[in-house]
């Protein structure tokens, strides 16, 4: 279960190296994926020195391990569908990508049961449009009428459902810890260094240049990263060429540390990274008469979602709160009233068997939530030219990690995105106010 300490890190007391070409801040699934792809795509073995800085080797608050573990192609943006298709291919071939000599094969415990999205009259047209685009990208999604839905899943109450979309392949859920462990083991074998500590400062230098319009632009470069080790007031400086911000829920804070957003409002310099931690609750309940083995990950018109967990009629699920309901993200305490008042009624409405259930446990985790358009930020900052972003995925970071890691490695090593065009996901969109809105946030 999430929150349990794990022995993922050994030798954490070692100091970081004095120099590293790339410093990745954040050792979760996204940070490790970037590390993997950097080493996989480097032109010659050993060419790039990579250091991953992670401040909590138990990953007690990291979004990766607290995730419900879903993967779907049912997004409203083509790039998100493509990322997901690539990621599922990566997961299916995990033991080719992440093989290490003498290492046992990984078992991600993938459940290929798909996602089932339910839409009301209001949302039906958009659902249909999205499915059409998803299919064009190669996803295997079927549309179902309420009658078809009722026949396939008799335990659903189809009242208020106008249309449903159902993933037939390549969607489901898996164990995020196995992926994290597998990545960790692999990147270590590829020569990536790890350091347990917190980044407290960036040493930068500025350079004034004139752009094509003749305006003066202040470009910055990060030269050094200061890492504060646990139980020490001292810091260790690491000289670096590039910093990757994969700090998830804390990536906004990290960006501020580099001076991003510190300028007059309305200017590029004054544009912050709009990523903040948003707390989400996940509840585990038992329901003896609940939906059977074939149950997909269901997301209801009300925003409530659930899936099975194991063989014994246990289920996990929850619901994203409205803006007004947003809980205080200062800690990861669980609000049990939220389940009683905001989750359970909708569960029971949609699945009458859920009227009789018993909650066994619950936990909370963070979305690295992009308040601007609920989508990832990928690639370099336009002014702090050597900070690369890989965060803001607003609840779909785990499932996009393999694709995002590859995208960041491509743009970092080669100067541009190669396989999936992530240009719309660059930081500059916040200043230009060009939203890349993902509508299917669960």
């Amino acid at each position, binding site marked *: 279960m999430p929150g349990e300490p794990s022995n993922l890190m050994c030798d954490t007391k070692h100091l970081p190296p004095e120099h590293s070409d790339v410093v990745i801040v954040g050792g979760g699934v996204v940070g490790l994926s970037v590390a993997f792809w950097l080493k996989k795509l480097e032109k010659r073995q050993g060419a790039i020195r990579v250091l991953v800085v992670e401040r909590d080797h138990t990953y007690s608050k990291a979004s990766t391990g607290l995730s419900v573990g879903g993967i779907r192609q049912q997004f409203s943006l083509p790039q998100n569908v493509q990322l997901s298709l690539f990621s599922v291919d990566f997961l299916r071939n995990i033991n080719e990508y992440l093989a290490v*000599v003498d290492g046992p094969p990984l078992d991600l415990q993938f459940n*290929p049961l798909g996602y089932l999205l339910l839409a009301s009259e209001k949302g039906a047209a958009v659902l249909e449009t999205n499915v059409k685009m998803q299919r064009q990208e190669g996803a295997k999604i079927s549309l179902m009428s309420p009658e078809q839905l009722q026949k396939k899943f008799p335990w659903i109450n189809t009242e208020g459902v106008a249309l449903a979309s159902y993933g037939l392949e390549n969607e489901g859920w898996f164990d995020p810890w196995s992926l994290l462990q597998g990545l960790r083991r692999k990147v270590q074998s590829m020569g990536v260094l790890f350091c347990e500590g917190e980044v407290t400062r960036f040493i930068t230098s500025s350079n004034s240049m004139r752009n094509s319009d003749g305006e003066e632009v202040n470009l910055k470069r990060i030269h050094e990263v200061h890492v504060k080790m646990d139980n020490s007031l001292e810091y260790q400086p690491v000289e670096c060429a590039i910093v990757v911000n994969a700090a998830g829920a804390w990536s906004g804070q990290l960006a501020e540390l580099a001076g991003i957003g510190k300028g007059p409002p309305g200017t590029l310099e004054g544009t912050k990274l709009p990523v903040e931690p948003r707390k989400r609750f996940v509840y585990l309940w038992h329901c003896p008469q609940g939906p*059977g083995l074939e149950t997909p990950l269901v997301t209801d018109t009300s925003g409530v979602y659930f899936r099975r967990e194991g063989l014994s009629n246990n289920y996990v699920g929850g619901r994203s709160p409205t803006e007004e309901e947003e809980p205080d993200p200062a800690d990861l305490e669980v609000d049990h009233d939220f389940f009683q008042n905001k989750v359970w009624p909708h569960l029971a409405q949609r699945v009458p068997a859920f009227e009789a259930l018993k909650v066994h446990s619950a936990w909370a985790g963070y979305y690295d939530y992009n308040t601007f358009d609920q989508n990832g930020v990928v690639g370099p900052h336009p002014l702090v030219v050597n900070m690369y972003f890989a965060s803001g995925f607003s609840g779909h970071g785990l499932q996009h990690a393999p694709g995002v890691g590859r995208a960041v490695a491509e743009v970092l090593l080669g100067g541009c995105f190669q396989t999936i065009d992530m240009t719309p996901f660059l930081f500059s969109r916040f200043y230009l106010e060009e939203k890349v809105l993902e509508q299917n946030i669960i």
Partner: protein
Amino acid sequence: MEFLRENVLQKQMQKVSLENRSFTIIQDKYGRDIAGACFILQHGGSVKFRDREWIRSDEYRRFSAEVLKFQAVPVEAIDASGCAINYHGLDNLLPLKKLQCLSLQRCPHVDDWCLSRLYLLADSLQELSLAGCPQISERGLACLHHLSNLRRLDISDLPGVEYPGLTQILVEEMLPNCEVVGTDWTQEGPEEQPQDPASPIHAKPAARDLGDPCGVS
């Protein structure tokens, strides 16, 4: 030394991949059913076209060219026991829209991902055997709910299924019109020796009564 071993591992994986490529040239010339049949025969399996006898290849994986004559005849049954078919190799079988019986017994590379593709055979498939497949778990078995025409399912001897008794009950609930055969886990005592996967494949299916169109054990 590590490099050599990584190399050997890669070569093994490449060999399986190569053997699972699509028979698109045959498909274009003779159609999907013949292409699928050739694929299975090359892997050492057996094929039954409608109203014809079972065809299998010899120990050198050679088979009669008479297969190419069955152009308008659909493939009804396939016995791919022990064959090295993988996720991509299934591309050759999934277009067989009249396939009624499929045996994937003891196939070493058939895993949960493979099972997640079988929904494409839902219109025709009536019998399926997954007995002895080392890589299948209950998560893959859950995908079989798509197979609404399934009447017989063999899920015995699956080492990857942690709770075979409970799993069988859940699968039976999931497929109410299907007879589910599992390991008789309640009985102690000596069991039949499991077939050595390295030995030549027993291509000839067990004898069946005349009413059964497929004859796959």
